[in-house]
């Protein structure tokens, strides 16, 4: 059985900053009703047994803290970024919000309306609306296929008891605390043990979720709110979860396709640089991967009359990658890029806090720089080509094109 609650503490950085991440397992992946996890996560900052939302807001602002309660598809939790001199306060606040929430009904009513407003705002942005439809196309009925905000009907079905219930279950499923920054590690560990000692023991097993099947249609057109002549094209399919051993090879493939420096990569070089079809072209190979599968995503913002040409180019480049593989120089450049980039991810307290939390949450070793370098160094071109044949499937592409009304 996995430990119910783990703690990671690391002294890093030169700036006087401390970053606290407290994640409890659960999130929208395990909610009963769409939007329940979002409301539950956000309610953590709306009142505790000791303070109401006004006091939380004022007291954190008084210290210049960035305090946020949140929900993702896999967790609910609290993040605090604070000046290092306030490390104890940051830790105490995270514990109070996560362990003693009061779930005030009046705040729930407001958060419902705010979530709906937020959803409407997001869907009013052309690329977001098209992207949302693409996720639905790939993941339905899995929770990744729906918005974290749910909809008006589902939000109306969530009451304070439901939020308290999901929070109770999240505490049983367990979680983690990460503290990184210019801190005294021993002092932080000691205080963390005092605050979170009640979460000792083993974690309850996570229940299963609906597997992603996707919508039947392989090509989807959606209307987007836009008064410019722009189409937003998404093409891709599911790949692997975060712990899958092929993620390292897939990272190399992403760079080859277009996730590297500037406008380099096969897709930007062809679609933007050679053919001038789009200003923005992007590629990722396991974006969104967590406990469940992430996805291959290629994206182009293009004029409406060149969307077909851009889609054709994407298909041809993916097929070429699978059929013909990589040349050695391209492989070595992509690998070198990833090795060279790794220190960029480890500059600040907040970056370290996120890396440690992710490593702890998914059972990864990515928090060790030498592990990353070794894994990339051991990779051969043939390994990457084999991963391309396994995980890039041009014949199975799902495509969503958002077009102006």
């Amino acid at each position, binding site marked *: 059985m996995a430990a119910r609650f783990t703690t990671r503490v690391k002294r890093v950085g*030169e700036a006087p900053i401390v970053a606290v991440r407290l994640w409890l397992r659960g999130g929208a992946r395990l909610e009963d009703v769409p939007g329940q996890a979002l409301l539950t996560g956000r309610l953590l900052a709306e009142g505790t047994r000791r303070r109401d939302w006004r006091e939380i807001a004022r007291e*954190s*602002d008084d210290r210049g803290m960035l305090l946020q309660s949140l929900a993702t598809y896999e967790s609910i939790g609290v993040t605090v970024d604070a000046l290092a001199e306030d490390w104890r306060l940051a830790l105490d606040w995270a514990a109070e919000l996560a362990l003693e929430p009061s779930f005030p009904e009046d705040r729930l009513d407001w958060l419902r309306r705010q979530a*709906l407003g937020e959803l409407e705002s997001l869907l*009013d942005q052309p690329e977001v609306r098209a992207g949302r439809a693409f996720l639905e196309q790939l993941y339905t009925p899995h929770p990744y296929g729906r918005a974290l905000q749910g909809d008006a009907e589902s939000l109306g079905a969530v009451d304070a008891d439901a939020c308290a219930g999901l929070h109770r279950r999240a505490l049983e499923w367990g979680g983690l605390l990460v503290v990184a920054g210019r801190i005294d590690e021993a002092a932080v560990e000691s205080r963390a043990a005092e605050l979170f000692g009640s979460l000792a023991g083993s974690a309850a097993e996570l229940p299963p979720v609906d597997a992603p099947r996707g919508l039947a249609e392989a090509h989807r057109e959606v209307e987007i709110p836009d008064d410019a002549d722009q189409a937003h094209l998404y093409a891709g399919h599911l790949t692997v979860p975060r712990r899958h051993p092929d993620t390292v090879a897939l990272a190399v493939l992403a760079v080859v396709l277009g996730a590297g*420096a500037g*406008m380099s990569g096969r897709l930007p070089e062809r679609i933007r640089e050679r053919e001038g079809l789009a200003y*923005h072209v992007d590629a990722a190979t396991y974006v969104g991967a967590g406990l469940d599968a992430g996805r291959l995503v290629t994206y182009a913002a293009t004029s409406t009359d060149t969307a077909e040409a851009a889609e054709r180019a994407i298909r041809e480049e993916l097929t070429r990658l699978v059929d013909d593989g990589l040349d050695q120089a391209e492989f070595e450049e992509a690998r*070198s890029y990833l090795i060279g980039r790794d220190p*960029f991810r480890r500059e600040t307290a907040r970056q370290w806090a996120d890396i440690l939390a992710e490593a702890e949450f998914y059972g990864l070793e990515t928090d060790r720089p030498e592990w990353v370098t070794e894994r990339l160094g051991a990779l051969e071109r043939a390994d990457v080509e084999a991963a391309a044949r396994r995980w890039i499937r041009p014949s199975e592409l799902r495509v969503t094109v958002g077009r102006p009304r």
Partner: protein
Amino acid sequence: MSKGAAREAAAAPRSGELRPAGELRRILDGARVERLANGLLVATLAAGQAPLVTTALIYRAGTRDDEAGHGGTAHFLEHMMFKGSPRYGPGEIDLLTRALGGSNNAFTSHDMTLYYFTFAADRWQQALEIESDRMAGLTLDAEAVRHERQVILEEIAMYEGEPWDALEQRVSAAAFPGHPYGRPVLGTREQLLATGAEALAAFHQRLYRPANAVLVVAGDVGGGVTEQVEAAFGGLDGEAPRRAPSPPPAAPNGLVRLERRAGEVARMLLSLPAPAATADDHPLLRLLVAVLGAGRSSRLHRALVDEGQLCVGVSADLNESVDPGGWTVAFEVIPGIEPRRAEETALAEIERLRRQPPSAEEVARAQKIVLADWIFDHERVYQQAFLVGTALALFDVEHPWRYLDRLLSVRADDLAAAAERYLSPERAGVLGWSLPVGSSSEPSPPAPLPEGEGSSRSGIEPPSPPGKGGLGGEGSR
């Protein structure tokens, strides 16, 4: 007491409460500034938090320097800097950057254009070779120019489709009539079509000169930086013309209203005049803007979000520009709420702050938030490089310190005059609405500003920021 320590003490009037201002002193004191014989200003900034080096090259050449009829040239040239120079063919800079595991990018604002590379500490010198080569000259092949023009036209279309960007563009044009800050950084379609290799080459020849540039080398730099910079840039010709002053921005007369119909959400952007970044009033206005919009307990957050429950979120921002610029308030209205209510509430809060300056407690909170945000925003090597480079290019290296020093020593009583000067929408401002297509809500009439106490509100997440870089505007490749 050292000079630095004395400044720090002066900046910490409340028993050490604001001590972390020393973080800025640490960064600035680590900067060594020299000038090459050809006029290139070089700052070396030692920062050892990661084995990385950022080089940032800033030209005092921005949208304000575009020739008449060739709007967008500064930004167009920024794109072309990656499309061919004597030693690097089209696309080769990106390929080389990728092969070395680095990153690069560039952006253009009204006041300047900045190029940067970040590499591992053992290979950062590659950036010097690239920058000196393309400072010396560009190939500007006609086909490459035609192709990149098309890419920028796509970029313009993309921004026109983004609700905040489209609104911001219209508000900026109205807020700075006759001044370059009102022009779009990307230019217009017609201006781009009128701009070819010749105009780009003339702009490059005129302004991309050592004496018109600042180079910052920041991070885990090791020794011999000056010698390496001298070797790369010392042979380049330095002179550049002085930038001609722009006409002072003519503030709108009264509160100008504009409206567009797009999408399904009501969005408001209010732009009001602000002083230049070097003006004594600027830090004071920064505090007033923070009292209004920084943090969940700020006045606008409470009135519009957490208590008023009218808006999804709200943001209040202040530009730092060479000439007098603007400060803004932006929000998105909750579905079903009459936009006019949100507008009236926001204007009432601004009016209330003008009539009743903030309490000492509010000022102390705003100072703490601004300071903490400043530290959060300058943790990374590239952020420190941009800080020092921008200060040197547009102001002077001590500008950030003077600014923060003044901001932290302000007391509540000092703010009344600044509030009177800058919190008066009815005297000069632009209020832009983007209203849902087919909605029945009419834009508010130019009614007298309501009095009124803060109604309510708070927000968990702010609305999407209106574009890149606020009204200062910037384009990135």
